[in-house]
Structures are given as C-alpha cells and as structure tokens.
C-alpha cells in the first residue's frame, strides 16, 4: 500500500506525564511573597499519561483515538517535544515533525504570503524553493484572490486549506494531524485532502492522525491506538481498534441511557406515591 519500511521514526518508551496544578499558583511576585507565609497549598495531581510505549515506522499512517480528556493532546505535545515528560521517559523522533491543527501555526496578522514564507523557512525550505512552489501552494489552497490578505480574515476552511497545502509542499517527514479534518465542512476540500493523503503516503511521509471522527482513522490508517484515561487500552490494526472503541462507546451510551431511564422511573414512582398520599 505504501512505502513503509522498518525504520522507526517515533519511539516512546515508559512515557508518563503528570501535571501538578496548584489551587492558587504563584504567577506574580505578590503571590510568591504571600506564599512564603502560607506554605500549605493544595496541589492537584493529574496523571495525564501513564507508561506509554509506542513505535511508529516510517511511511506508516497511524491513528490515535480516545474520548475527550483521555490524554491525546498531551501525547501529541510530548511527541512534538513541546512538553517535557516525567523522569525516566525516552522520546526519540527522526525527521522534521509538523502538527496540523485548525487555526494554529499561523500568525493571524500576517498575510498568506508571509505565513507561507515563515512556515516554509522554519520547515527547512530555502526562499528560492518556497518561491518556486508558491503558486502551487496558493492554487492548491484555492486562495488566489487572498494572497496578501491577513490570515485573520480567512474562513475556517481557507485556513485549513492553506495549512494543509503548506504541509504538503514542505519537507516535513512526519505530519501530525490533530483533529484536522473534523472541523472542516467543505466537501470539496475533504475530497481533495483524501486525494492528497494518498499522494503524501506515496511520498513515504509518516502520518499520525488524531481524531474524534474515528471513521477517518479507519479509512486512512493501518495501525491505531486507543487511549483511555491516560493508558493505552488497545493497540493494533486500525479496523479492530476503531471497532472496539465504537463497541465500547455504544455500550457506555446504552448504560448511560439505562441509568437515565431508571432515574426517570424512580422519579415518576416517587411522584405517583406522593400524589396517592
């Protein structure tokens, strides 16, 4: 299906992440001074991720699914190395990694042209290279008439198209799609991105896809993990993981429904009893 090989481009070993949030953190000098006299502070410990071990190979399309607050975002930040893991963890990545999330990665006050040059050069492209692919990026994003318009005036769809277009043309080896397609309603763009997806896969780029839209993960990914409350609940073929996740989701929904029903029943009985009295 693709140019996947045995080279591991992302390796996580014993990765855990604990957040310590103080009830009233000292963010100002005043707080710090007052804190000297009031040493007893409640510290809330949140174990966002626990003992994650993961290997992603070059050219693989890998999915990460899980409900809200399960630790997906934290995992992405750790992979991007924009956050530090707890002691004892190893995170190794090979190649330039780019995260694509809606509305992020661009300066809203700069024009599309400037954002392309800033992002492109940060991603390792020379100015001459960016100039040579500039028209292509604009054409792909379908924003020919808005090249010098500040990005803050762009619609969600235009934003997403431009970002995706930069990512496709830049030489980032690993693309991290963080809920990237979920928010775009543009059918045309969805079709286009599916085609682009295949092209990217053929180029041998690694794709890590984080999504609530689990069908997307099933459609595009070969392997996937399901994270639940900070631990990997299941790892394996994307089909199987997504099916298990949906099954579990249905079960939970059914359980919730049943509980709600029981609660309503109880209330009704109580009311009846009261009326009878």
């Amino acid at each position: 299906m693709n140019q996947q090989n045995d080279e591991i481009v992302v390796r996580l070993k014993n990765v855990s992440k604990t957040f310590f949030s103080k009830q009233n953190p000292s963010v100002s000098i005043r707080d710090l001074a007052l804190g000297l006299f009031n040493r007893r502070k409640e510290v809330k410990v949140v174990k966002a991720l626990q003992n994650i071990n993961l290997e992603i190979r070059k050219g693989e399309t890998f999915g990460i699914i899980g409900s809200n607050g399960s630790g997906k975002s934290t995992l992405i930040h750790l992979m991007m190395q924009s956050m530090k893991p707890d002691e004892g963890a190893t995170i190794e990545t090979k190649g330039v990694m780019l995260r694509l999330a809606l509305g992020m990665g661009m300066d809203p006050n700069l024009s599309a042209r400037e954002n392309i040059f800033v992002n492109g050069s940060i991603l390792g492209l020379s100015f001459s290279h960016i100039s040579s692919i500039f028209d292509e990026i604009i054409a792909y994003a379908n924003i020919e008439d808005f090249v010098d318009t500040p990005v803050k005036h762009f619609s969600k769809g235009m934003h997403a198209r431009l970002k995706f277009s930069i990512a496709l043309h830049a030489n980032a080896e690993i693309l991290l799609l963080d809920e990237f397609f979920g928010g775009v309603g543009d059918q045309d763009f969805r079709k286009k991105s599916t085609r682009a997806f295949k092209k990217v896969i053929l180029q041998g780029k690694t794709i890590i896809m984080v999504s609530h839209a689990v069908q997307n993960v099933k459609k595009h990914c070969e392997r996937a993990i399901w994270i639940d409350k900070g631990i990997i609940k299941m790892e394996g073929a994307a089909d199987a993981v997504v099916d298990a996740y949906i099954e579990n989701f249905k079960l939970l929904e059914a359980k919730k429904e049943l509980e709600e029903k029981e609660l309503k029943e109880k209330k009704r009985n109580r009311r009846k009893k009261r009326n009878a009295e």
Partner: protein
Amino acid sequence: MLSKLKTNILNKIPDNNRYERIWKIAQVDFKKRYFNTKLGLLWALINPLFRLFVFYFVFAWIGRMRGDNFGIYIFGALIVWMSFMETTSAGIRLLHAKKYLLMNIQFNKLDLFISNTTAGFMGFLFNLVAYMIISIGVGIPIIPDIVWLPLLVINLYILTLGVSLILAVINIYLKDIHHVWSMYSLLGFWTMPSIFPMERFTGYLEILLWINPVAGILVNIRNILFYGKPIEWKFFFYNFALAILFYLIGEYLLNKHWQNSLEKA
C-alpha cells in the same frame, strides 16, 4: 545582480536556510512593528525624538543645563537605551507570542530570539545613522576610533539577546516580570550618564557604570561619536564579557525551560 550576489553569499554560508529563517521572522516582526502604522519606520525615530524634546525642554530650558550640543548628547543615550529596553521587553513575551510556531513545528527556539533582536536592531541602526548624520552636521569630528563602532553595536546586540532570553524564561514562572522590567527602564536610564555628564559618575558613583551593562557601551559610543575621544578599553572588555555571559546563561536557561512555557501558559 544584487539578488545573484545575495544567493552566492548565502550559498557559501553553511546551513543557509537558518539565516533565511531568522531574517524572515525578523523582517515580519519589524514590519508588524512599524509598517501597519501610517508613519511606518518614522516611528522608530519619532519616539526618541519626542523624548529628546521633553528632556531638552526640562533640562535645558527649565533647568538651564546647557552644554555644547546638549540635545545630541541626550539623543545618543535615548536611542541606545530605548533600543535595549524595547527589544528586551518584546523578548519577555516572545515564547507566548510565538506559541503558534512552538506548538506546531520543531525548530531551534533560539532563532526566535535572534530574529526579535535583529528586528529591534533594524530600528536602532536607522536611528544610529540619523544620529551620525546630525553629529557630522554640527561639526563633530570623525576620529579613527570609529572603526570600533560596529563592535560596540555587536556588543549591545549580544547583551540585548542574552537579557531577552533570561527575561523570557523568568516570564514562564513569573508573569509580572514585565512590570518589574518597566520599572528598571526608569532606574537604568537615570543611573547612567544619559542626561548628566560623565564627570558626575566619579568616586563612589563610578560603580553605577559597572552595574548597568549598557552604561559602558554608551560611554564608548559617546566617546567615539560625541567627544571624538578614543574608546575606554576597560569598559569595552568588561561589557563584552558581560554580554557573552548573559547570552550563555540565557541560552542555557532557554534550552532547559522552554518546554514549560506551554504548561504554565
């Protein structure tokens, strides 16, 4: 022709994409700072000129403190100090302001600070040229020691970069550092020979010239461009060493702590 020359030079520098990147971010920062306004780059000059007018009015007319070219004397201090303060103040919030890049792309974070300092220095160099033109215009002689001027500018650049790095890391943990820094702006300006003559900074007051890392640089810039005197090497070496020390501390702190900026945001 020019672009060909530029490409040739860039090709000779190893990893030239890094320099392009730094230049691009500096360019857009500079543009954002000045070109979204009606008067554009002129603001870089108008701001110190306005302060100069206020100080001149207060000290020369009300305070009757008049020396030869007193206005130029103050103007030199204003452009040096304002460049240092404006650039370091922008540096304080840099990790926050560039979060959109930090979160999404892997690259050397130091480049953001080099770009910020470079953007700040574009305005400074513009003012320095204006200052030199005025100095020559009023008959201040050009002395051979002017060859050291670029080194003094580089000294100020490294110092600004180092202090920006340190302040940005402090800002991760203490958000109100910018209030402290704006207070220091006042303190630093008045405790160096910005308005008062050098002769006042003798005896025990000389220590002020050693405490403020910008003071020695200002003294030497003034020696060259105002008094037509040779530079004072004791200040030159001390300030250069101090700037490098600040830079090394700043770079170490950035590498160790930048990842916490997302958590603490």
